[in-house]
């Protein structure tokens, strides 16, 4: 799925670009002023802002964010590294691919969130379960992208490598890794988004800290302002991570075209 990039052409269109989000915020302020709904249901924007400031000043928000990002980084790194390694392995060896692919595709088909109750039973509700679920979410898209990328490398490269009697580790390091970078990066970006969603879901279900747990506590205490702060923060994190990887992809594709 490619995402259309907005290129505004005139100040007129730039105004239109900001119009709809601004209109929604305006409508929000206006409806909450009218008092159609009680404040507990439709929180005025300024209350959400105050709640965010309060959470920030007490250090709660930073603490939850730190916890969530820590889990995301550890789980994602483990899952992505294993995914790249496994992808290269099944990309290079037909035997390994034939042996692993039915099981691989069967597990890949099951939505990651469905494994949450199982993992809770085995590992309890502590950190291990969250890191494993994030790693699982990251592993499959990365492995699939790496596999496709390795299979897409022109045969000639391998023939040259064989002619030069390149040892396998050099083949992986000098040929396979560089030529698979752009598609693997796309796989990494997609799985980072999924990992983030799965982590938030896991924290909503069972956690004693993290941005998901902050929202769940807010829900139990009927604090819609806190829940909305959580929604904005998760959206912002997801958006920033996506942008970060997109700019990385852009740079590396440029490098590819230059050489």
């Amino acid at each position, binding site marked *: 799925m490619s995402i*259309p990039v907005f290129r505004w052409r005139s100040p007129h269109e730039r105004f*239109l670009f900001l119009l709809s989000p601004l209109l929604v915020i305006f409508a929000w302020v206006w409806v909450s002023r009218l008092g159609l709904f009680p404040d507990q249901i439709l929180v005025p924007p300024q209350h959400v802002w105050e709640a965010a400031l309060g959470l920030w000043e007490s250090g709660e928000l930073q603490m939850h964010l730190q916890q969530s990002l820590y889990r995301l980084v550890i789980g994602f790194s483990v899952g992505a590294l294993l995914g790249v390694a496994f992808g290269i392995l099944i990309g290079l060896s037909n035997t390994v691919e034939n042996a692993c692919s039915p*099981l691989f595709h069967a597990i890949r088909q099951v939505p990651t969130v469905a494994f949450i109750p*199982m993992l809770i*039973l085995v590992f309890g509700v502590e950190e291990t379960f969250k890191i494993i679920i994030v790693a699982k979410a990251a592993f499959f898209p990365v492995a699939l992208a790496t596999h496709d990328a390795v299979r897409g490398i022109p045969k000639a490269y391998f023939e040259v490598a064989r002619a030069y009697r390149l040892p396998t580790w050099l083949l992986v390091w000098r040929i396979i890794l560089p030529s698979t970078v752009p598609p693997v990066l796309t796989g990494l970006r997609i799985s980072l988004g999924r990992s983030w969603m799965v982590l938030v879901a896991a924290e*909503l279900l069972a956690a004693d800290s993290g941005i998901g747990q902050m929202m769940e506590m807010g829900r139990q205490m009927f604090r819609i302002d806190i829940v909305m702060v959580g929604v904005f923060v998760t959206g912002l994190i997801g958006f920033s991570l996506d942008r970060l990887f997109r700019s990385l992809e852009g740079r590396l594709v440029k490098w590819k075209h230059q050489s």
Partner: protein
Amino acid sequence: MKRILNLAGNRVFQGAVLPILLLVLWELASRQGVAYAYAFVPLGQIWQGLLELLQTGELVTNLTATLRTMLVGLLIGGTLGLAVGGMMGIFRIVDLLIGPLYHTIRQVPLLGLIPLIGLWFGNGDFSKVLIVSMAAFYPMVLNTYEGVRNVEKRYIEVATVLRFSRWQLFRRVLFPGALPSIWTGLMHALAFAWISTVGSELLFAAGPGLGGMMQNAQSISRMDIVVIGVASIGVTGLLLNAGFSRLRRYSLRWRETG
């Protein structure tokens, strides 16, 4: 001897080795003691659990409820996505007005919206269907939009020369031209709807549904039921995907393949 060698070269056989090995290891692990049998439920117990769930009709009730949530959500979200994506693709003004809002809201992980939706609409069927509809809506908008925008300009020019009415242009040129991309969107929508159905059932554990069934089983430490739940979700997802793929092939059969 030769037959055995042939068998070893068979892809089906090669693919079956690893799962069978894992099952054997699982069964062996379950016999190592009580603590192990808790995590690795003996296969016999899973089979017993399955029979029990089938006899009480629990599995069928929950599966039907899950499928209903998913299909209703897919229908609502898919239809709305088709309409909004089509409008965005045809009218530039709609694109400029709705596009930015759509891309902003899409950033929030869907399951992260669950506490908010739970507070606003409770944790009943409505909230579940709402989440699933949103999951189906996003990819549908994106792919319909792209499909309509990428219809070959030549076709539209021909339609203009032939003085097609707006409706004819849509019915004869834009819709068929965008159909392959719309189907891609629908396949994505199906996958996301299925994930979010399971997710929303786990998080709003009220009412019937496979997610709720697994959540209850987890709270009473019935690993066998949890495993059956995971397997049912996997198999149902696979069948849905296969069914929709066939429909897609049938609906796009007029396309030249090659």
